[in-house]
Each structure stands twice: as structure tokens, then as C-alpha cells.
């Protein structure tokens, strides 16, 4: 069982990479409730590899990763974790609406064969709103621009009401107004105790929300000047 006082995410002395070869080493990172930690670094420094590793998608070469106090390989309570992948990962041979995509983020909270309740539908509505897609739920995913598509992925992660949210470049290709909406949403989540890890290429409108920035290449967490702890 996870300890109640444990950090949401702890990375200790970790090296991450592909096929057993480390691309990034000496990683230490701790994310507690309400933390908003930016992970920055040039292309190829292993930002996405780090993200995939902490999510259990493989890549841990050395060291330890704990989620909610449980070692990664024993962690099963995945509904507490939300994930926004970097690439426009969603490919479908069949049509899918924005709302249907976002609603899949709610599924981990349901048992198999269980129907959506009113609370689930509200969760999906809130998630669409939080990603700035209120009113776009009926649209077909294939009709969206790249930036809107990315916001739909954010909404999908929000729909699961995660306690730890991991976002891989959620702002790339997203216009400034929508970034503001995302910043406000993340600030709101942080205030309710959600821990957030966000990989960013450019800080942009998210700057005021961040509590810490980790620059890869500088493995130890560097406090952002003027940041609120």
C-alpha cells in the first residue's frame, strides 16, 4: 500500500534510456501535492524518455521511481495518474468525436460493463472546459487543428480527475489564448493539491504557474527565481 505522506512522484538516482542504454543519468525529482514542476531541456536531452519512464512505459535503466510511495513495478493504481502524450498519438480508422476521445479518460474510474453516470458526464464537461474546448465536443477529431487536437489530449487526461498529471509539451502549436486557459486550469488543479509535471519547450503563459523548473543537463532541481514554494 502507498503511504499517505509519500510524494506523488519520486525519482531517485535514476538513469533513463532506450534498450538498456542510458541517455540521461543522475536524475532526482520529487513532486508533492500542488507542485507544478517544469522539465526543460534542448531536443534530444531525454525529456520524453523521462516522462515515459515515470509512467511505466519502459526506459528505466538504473535507480528508482516511486509513484505515491509504491515502486513503479508494483504500482497498480493508475487511475490516480493523468497523462498527456506529446505526439498527436491518436490515430483511428473509424470516426471519433472530441467528446468520445475525452470520455475515454474517464474509463479507468469505471468497472468493465459499468455505464457512465451523471458524475462521469460532468467530469467530461469540466475537462472539455478546462482545456478550452467547451462547445467543441461534437466535432470530429479529424477536423481539429494540431493545437486543438493537443488540447483534446489535455482534456482527456483531466477527465480522469488525476492526482498526478504528467504533460509532455502540452503547449506546442497551441495559440496564446488557449495557453492562458491551460495555465488557469493547471493553477486551479495545483490549488486543489494535484501534482503536475510538465515538459515544456517554451515556458510562455505557464510561467506564473510553475513552482519549480528542472533543466535536463542540470539534473538537480533548480528553484525558479521568485517562485512560490
Amino acid at each position, binding site marked *: 500500500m502507498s503511504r499517505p505522506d509519500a510524494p506523488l512522484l519520486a525519482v531517485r538516482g535514476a538513469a533513463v534510456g532506450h534498450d538498456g542504454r542510458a541517455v540521461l543519468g543522475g536524475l532526482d525529482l520529487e513532486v508533492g501535492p500542488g507542485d507544478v514542476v517544469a522539465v526543460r531541456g534542448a531536443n534530444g536531452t531525454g525529456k520524453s524518455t523521462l516522462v*515515459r519512464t515515470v*509512467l*511505466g*512505459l519502459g526506459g528505466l535503466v538504473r535507480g528508482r521511481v516511486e509513484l505515491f510511495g509504491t515502486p513503479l513495478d508494483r504500482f*497498480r*493504481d*493508475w*487511475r490516480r*495518474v493523468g*497523462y498527456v*502524450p506529446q505526439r*498527436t*498519438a*491518436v*490515430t*483511428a*480508422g*473509424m*470516426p*471519433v*468525436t472530441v*467528446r*468520445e*476521445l475525452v*470520455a*475515454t*479518460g474517464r*474509463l*479507468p474510474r469505471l468497472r*468493465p*460493463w459499468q455505464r457512465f453516470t451523471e458524475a462521469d458526464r460532468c467530469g467530461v464537461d469540466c475537462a472539455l472546459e478546462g482545456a478550452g474546448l467547451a462547445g467543441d465536443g*461534437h466535432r*470530429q*477529431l*479529424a*477536423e*481539429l*487543428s*494540431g*493545437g*486543438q*487536437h*493537443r488540447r483534446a489530449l489535455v482534456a*482527456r487526461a483531466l477527465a*480522469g480527475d488525476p492526482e498526478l498529471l504528467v504533460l509532455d509539451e502540452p503547449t*506546442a*502549436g497551441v*495559440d*496564446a489564448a488557449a495557453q492562458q486557459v491551460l495555465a488557469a486550469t493547471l493553477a486551479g488543479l495545483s490549488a486543489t493539491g494535484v501534482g503536475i509535471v510538465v515538459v515544456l519547450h*517554451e*515556458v*510562455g*503563459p505557464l*510561467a506564473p504557474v510553475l513552482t519549480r523548473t528542472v533543466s535536463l543537463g542540470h539534473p538537480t532541481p533548480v528553484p525558479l527565481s521568485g517562485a512560490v514554494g
Partner: protein
Amino acid sequence: MLGYGFMQTALVAAVLVGLTAPTVGVHLVQRRLSLIGDGVGHVALLGVALGLATRTAPVAAALVTAVTGAVLLEVLRHRRSAAADVALSVLFYGGIAGAVVVVARAPAGSAVNLDSYLFGALTTTTRADLVAFTVLAAVVLTVTVGLGRQLFMAALDEDFAVVAGLPVLRLNLLLATVTAGTVVLSMRILGLLLISGLMVLPAACAQQLARGYRSSMLTAVAVGVGVATSGTVVSFYADTPSGGTIVLLAVAVFVLARLARTVRRGTARLADAGAHEDAGAPAGPRSAGPIGPAISRWRGPARPSAG
């Protein structure tokens, strides 16, 4: 027509297959596996042949081999190894070649005709068959519709589904199993060579007409039940084989759906003042992929430099 007992049974069987096969097809098309049903049919034929040759129930034997084959296919696909593609063809052609050879070497006196299994013989369906079909259809629908959202999620974005804690491999194996079940269910009605048609073509129609997953499922089922029953009726009056008639009707509906979509897109394009002239290009942006970088480049200079 309905005065004939065999036609009553045939129509009930047609409704069952028309209802079940498209629900599997939607998931297969979503995974871009529209030909997998055909492969499973090849493997099922080996089961039929073994059943006929050893004078045990060919349908049960087909079910066992088809499920085994489908599960094996899914495991190979899951590993994503380069050898998987070749392994699939070994399984497909091994299945059909094995069937032909086994039937040829069957002991004298056994009913060694594969034709009714290859092309279907709807009117030979018995009332006892109907009971078995109903049970099989119920099992298939419990998975394809009951777990539809989960299957849909796993196909849409596998990484996300894994992170969300969804048992992706188990779900895909379950889909493979019900695909095999549907192949065997439809075998007597449509024939092993035509089953894939009734799974995939209604889903392909839905792809042209529907806007989302749910409406796709409903459209596919409507098309499936429609062509299965009308095909059965047409085959009775026109004295044509039921399987071929049903699948030809499904092809016709697909062509109409495709035309309707082209016309609709064309109208929308004309209405759009800034319409492009590349009418030969695939209609509409199928993937939002390349647009993202384009937009970020375009917005690049205008982005406010916060922080």
C-alpha cells in the same frame, strides 16, 4: 416466402449475423485490421476439414482452431516483430492448404464437401443451429458492445490506455477470440470466404457516414442487419446464393455511402469561398498531424514573450 420454415430460420440467422458481425468489424477497422477476419476464416477451414475427416462436429472443430489461430495472430501482432507479418501468412496459407489436403485424404464415405462452408448455405440452417447461434451472438455482443468503450480506447491510443491501467493485451485477445467466434457463427450463413465482407463493409459504410464511434456502431449495425435480411430475401426470389447476395448488397451500400460523402464534401467545398482546387486530393484533412507544426511556425513570431 415466410410460409417456408427454412426461410423463417434463415431470416433469424441473418438478423443474428447482421447484428453481430458489424460490431466486430468496427473494432477491426479501427485497428486497421480489416483483413484479419479473412485470415481467421482460412484457419477455421482447417478446423472444418479436421471435423469432417474425423467425423466429429465440424463447427466445434472450426471454433477451436479459429480461436487458437486468432489468439496466436494477436500475440504475434502484439510483439510487433518483423517476423510477425510473415508468420501471419504462414498461418493463413497453412490453414487453407491443410484443409484442402485433409479433406482430400478423408476416409471414404464421409461428407467431404467444403463448398457449403466456403460459400455458405443459409437455407440449410436448422432450429438447433439457431440456438447455438443465439448464444454465440450474445457472447460476441457482450464483448464488442459491452466492452466497446474499452476496446475503442485501447485502439485509439495504446500508450495512454496502458498508463490508464487498461489491460490492453487481454482486451485485444478477447477481441481476437470473438472475431473467431463471429467467423464460425457466420460460416454456415455467408461462407468462410465472405464473412469478412459482412464484418468490414458495414463498418466501412459507417466510416463514410458517421461522425463518431457511437454513431459508427449504430450505422454499421443498421447496414449489417439491413443487407443481411434483404440479401436473404433477394436470394430467395432471385435464386442466388445467400452469402454472395448479402455481401454484394453491402458493397452497393458502401458505394452509395462513398458517393454521398463525396457529394457532401463537394457541396461544402463549393460553399467555402476559399476552396482549394485540388479535388483529386483525399477529401478533407484526415490527420491533424502536419497542421500542428505549420500553425506553430505561423504563430511563432506573434507569440508573446512571457517570462
